[in-house]
């Protein structure tokens, strides 16, 4: 498989997951705010923080109102991290690898993009937004399923999966970072809403139901963190994503250095009990995890991709 094609498949996986995560987060956030009083300090602005897009947002909008944040994250073509931009990048990566991607999958990507270009800019109200974002999520899922069911599970498919799981791992750590930071500045008035907050963290990663089945006690911050970082079975936990990445990398030629990088991250995670951390330590630990995910990405780039090779 060509290095250039591998690189585009990897990015296709990342953008696909980024779009789906974005849709899940925005969909849940509106619901959560309905349950929270203003003084609990939960705002639309925090969504921008989760995506790490504060600077871009500030350069384009005056105030972080619901309308501005939603249009920035959902349909703003100038925001490279918006759902619409991610889907455009997904389409471009698949369009330029159409020779290796099954035609059905390309058509699915193309239709998803056409649908989003038409509907996302019009999803201003909470009701239409919910419907449109749900449609985006289900079409992303349809694409994931089509790829799994119609594309040979060779290196191209593996690179797509690696990109997808790395993006997912990154998002899980980001979603956790915001409430974890708020633990640092615990306000008394905030106490009654703590349960709602953590429940929504679970929901924004579609983890609420599985958490209830596996943890079997009321939702507590420390359990949520432990579950989302270290649970071995839930597919959006950091630990599961890393295991998936390791398994896919093993099936790609010349994988040793990348696999070593991910192996040491897994060992580290397995040896760290997050429930014993205080808020400040936890916050630092999440930062470290994100940085190390960045290292894994760099290792993949330098091992396989054309962009890293000198002529």
């Amino acid at each position, binding site marked *: *498989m*060509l*290095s*250039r*094609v*591998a690189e585009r498949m990897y990015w296709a996986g990342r953008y696909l997951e980024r779009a789906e995560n974005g849709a899940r987060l925005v969909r849940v956030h509106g619901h959560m705010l309905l349950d929270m009083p203003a003084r609990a300090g939960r705002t639309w602005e925090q969504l921008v923080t989760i995506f790490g897009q504060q600077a871009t947002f500030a350069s384009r909008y005056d105030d972080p109102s619901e309308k501005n944040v939603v249009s920035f994250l959902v349909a703003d073509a100038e925001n490279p991290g918006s759902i619409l931009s991610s889907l455009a990048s997904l389409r*471009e990566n698949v*369009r*330029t690898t*159409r*020779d*290796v991607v099954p*035609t059905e999958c*390309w*058509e699915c990507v*193309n*239709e998803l993009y*056409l649908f989003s270009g038409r509907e996302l800019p019009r999803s201003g109200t909470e009701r239409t937004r919910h419907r449109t974002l749900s449609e985006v999520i289900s079409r992303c899922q349809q694409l994931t399923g089509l790829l799994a069911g119609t594309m040979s599970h060779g*290196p191209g498919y593996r690179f797509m999966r690696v990109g997808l799981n790395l993006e997912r791992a990154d998002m899980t750590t980001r979603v956790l970072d915001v409430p974890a930071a708020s633990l640092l500045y615990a306000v008394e008035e905030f106490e009654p809403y703590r349960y709602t907050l953590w429940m929504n963290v679970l929901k924004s990663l579609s983890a609420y139901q599985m958490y209830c089945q596996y943890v079997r006690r009321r939702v507590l911050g420390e359990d949520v963190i432990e579950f989302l970082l270290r649970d071995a079975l839930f597919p959006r936990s950091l630990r599961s994503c890393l295991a998936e990445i390791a398994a896919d990398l093993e099936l*790609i*030629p*010349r994988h040793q250095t990348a696999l070593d990088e991910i192996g040491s991250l897994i060992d580290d995670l397995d040896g760290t009990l997050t429930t014993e951390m205080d808020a400040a330590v936890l916050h630092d630990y999440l930062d470290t995890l994100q940085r190390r995910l960045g290292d894994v990405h760099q290792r993949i780039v330098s091992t*396989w991709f*054309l962009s890293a*090779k000198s*002529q």
Partner: protein
Amino acid sequence: MPPILRDYTPGAFHDELVTPEGRSRAGADQLVTYLNTLSSKALIDRQAAAERAITEMGITFTVYTEGQNIDRAWPFDIVPRVISGSEWSGIEAGLRQRLSALNLFIDDLYHEQKVVKDGVFPKETLASSKNFLTACVGASPRFGVWAHICGSDLVRDSDGTMYVLEDNLRVPSGVSYMLENRSVTKRVFPDLFENQNIMPVDNYPSDLFDMLVAIAPTEDPEPEVAVLTPGIYNSAYFEHSYLAQRMGAELVEGGDLLVGDDDCVYMRNIEGLTRVHSIYRRIDDTFLDPQVFRPDSMLGVPGIMRAWRNGNVALANAPGSGVADDKVVYTYVPELIRYYLDQDPILPNVPTWRCSDSKHLDHVITNLADLVVKPANESGGYGMLIGPVASKAELENFAGLIRADPRNYIAQPTLAISTTATVSEAELEPRHVDLRPFILQSDRLAVTAGGLTRVALVKGSLVVNSSQGGGSKDTWIVEDRD
């Protein structure tokens, strides 16, 4: 409900669907009958369904303007263009004959030049050919075949004769649209395919792949085949990707390839480097190798000409094939067929004046207002003069251009090219069409069943290029013998 073709009047032109008396042409009976059962609304619905399918299937061509890369839906008309099987078999034989002669000609030019020594082809014309590449002299591609893929443009004049307008031997495009047009038409008119024998077109990718395997310089039964594209901004990128996918070949850009110290071509992949044996290159000769041609080319592969000359990689078409894709050479093709094959040409050329010939030149200058003048080495309709619609100033200007460089121009009468029924608003109206069949040659020849029919969608227009208001149609070769 009146039959939809009741008011259809082709006028003075030869129409591909009906005769001047309003009867169906050979092979078109079923289509005419079917069209007449459609209401205007049904016609519009089907056209809309086809356009939707094209958008959803992502059949596009790329327009690169103002620094932005726009992927446009392919303009398509649902009414197929029909040619009877009996007429087609003659055309097909003519196309095979033409390409065989052209390949013998190219191989001769790069070796002994017997055709020049025997006085059939003038030395001066060869000497002034822009596409004769000295870097190719003495090279010997397999089977003596240089132009492996040829797209010849055919037009039918008002007398009903099919003429060859030009032979595209450099990087002819359009074949992917021929294939996609068929799959869209099957979605729109499935019933029409059930009751008659329409020759299938979808074996083209396999024929192309077989050709690329046949010319590969290796005994390995599974040589590595690649399609070399200039990249995603090229207007034909869709086609490059489409053909690579259908052949199961790698789609590569110049940066994916390198020539090793052993003068072999390798591609950079995740395992490291892999040898490539056969390359369907979709970039022009002059961009192919910055070490030999344009040093500023970012699209090519340094050293690839060396690898090719040493017989370590096959390039289709071979570099230098463009020497026969010259409108002056075109005028000699009938003589070349007689010279190399000792046969009479099956397909006629459009009568053509060579401005390099002083008698012809006088005729051209005197009758400029009635002629179409074309530069010898441009494609895509660039740098042409269409006499009947040109202003006086344009005519004078062009006469000056021709006198300054007569070798670079040929002139042809303006043809009354044929029409066929095409959707316009809610009706069917005649629009002008041409036809580009594709011919493959290695150790054997293969011709597409039909080809790409291009149609000028604007009333009265003769311009069929997709970038200038042209569209395309499915082409049916319909069996008309019992």
